[in-house]
């Protein structure tokens, strides 16, 4: 299942659908970075609102995506982690520690806009 990636100015928004297979995650990792390069994006929002479970592979892939995008000079924000998912994640020790997170799309965009201002 492909993850839709939308462009909003300098920001790309990738919205997860409910259940993503490992193959889907790998494809996203490749695809998202290519899009960042193509559009010279400064920020990426990965919206995981629809995810009701986050396993260690998904968590690791998200961190890798964020690292790869940072190497392109862009910032990633993960948004929409549900309370139950967050709770399960910390119990498993999946903290996504060096990745920025925000409550939802709106907050994620605010965060990136703030970040862009500071850089400029």
């Amino acid at each position, binding site marked *: 299942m492909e993850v839709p990636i939308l462009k909003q100015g300098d920001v790309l928004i990738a919205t997860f659908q409910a259940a993503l297979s490992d193959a889907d995650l790998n494809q996203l990792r490749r695809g998202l970075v290519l899009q960042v390069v193509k559009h010279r994006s400064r920020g990426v929002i990965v919206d995981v609102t629809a995810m009701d479970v986050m396993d260690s592979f998904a968590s690791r892939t998200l961190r890798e995506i964020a690292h790869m995008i940072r190497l392109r000079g862009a910032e990633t924000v*993960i*948004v929409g*982690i*549900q*309370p139950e998912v*967050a*709770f399960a*994640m*910390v*119990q498993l020790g999946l*903290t*996504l*520690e060096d990745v920025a*997170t*925000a*409550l*939802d799309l709106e*907050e*994620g965009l605010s*965060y990136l806009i703030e970040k862009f201002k500071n850089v400029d």
Partner: protein
Amino acid sequence: MAKRENPTKESGARNSQEAELLRGEATSELLRELVAHLRQNRTQLREEWVVRISETRLLTAMTKEEIFAEATSVYDSYVEALETETFEALQAYARNLSERIIPRGVETHEVVGIVLLLRDVLARSLFAKYQTDFKKLNRILDAYEPAANRIANTVAVGFVQERERVIRQQQEAIRELSTPVLQVRERLLILPIIGVIDPQRARQLTEQLLRGIRTNRAKVVVIDITGVAAMDVTVANHLVQTVEASRLLGATVIVTGLSPEIAQTLVTIGVDLGKMNTVGDLQGGIEQAERLLGYKVVTLAEPR
């Protein structure tokens, strides 16, 4: 020899099976007679029972009218259980009754007490009725006693189960009350924790906080543990997890009010203090939260 023995044994076995059947029928027959007697003398026996209840000073939390009303229902359910030899209706009635009287402060010993009193009142009336026919009295009691005991058991168990249900409900309510998540400014939540935190309460706290962050769209949370005397390693880990889970929802957590003992615990378990944002007291925590959110508090005029 062998040929003659077997027929005796077989017929012996058949005899005992038949005897069992006959006994069963006889028991039902006797119970019917018993139930008829109890129905005929309902008014008198119920009155006797109510008198015994007030003599033994049971159900003092209820008025005479209430006792009379409930006594009527219990008596009728009792007789019905004896008649049908089924106890589901009685169980349902017992739970229903318990739901009504537990809030009135009626205790288990009172409920068991009155059911046993009824058993005694009915037994005495049987003694009186069959006093001239000892054999019949025995047979009647053989039928009555197991059923009466089962009834007492059913009612007592129903009552206790209802009490346990109420206790569980109250415990849940207390837990929820004791961990309020409060919004004090736009995007700022405060979670004041007071008392003992056990792992279950810690877990409940975390769930409530995460839901609160999402509902209130909080960006900063101040968790104040001034009111918490001590924390064991498990709970300290829960606290760290709460901080991390909150961050996943985009909220920063400031922990305030750590006592020296708790500070010691955290250092001992090797909590990565870089991950934990702590400030001495609640006031300091709120001030820092306001700074993070871009608020500035200024005095406009002299306080009145």
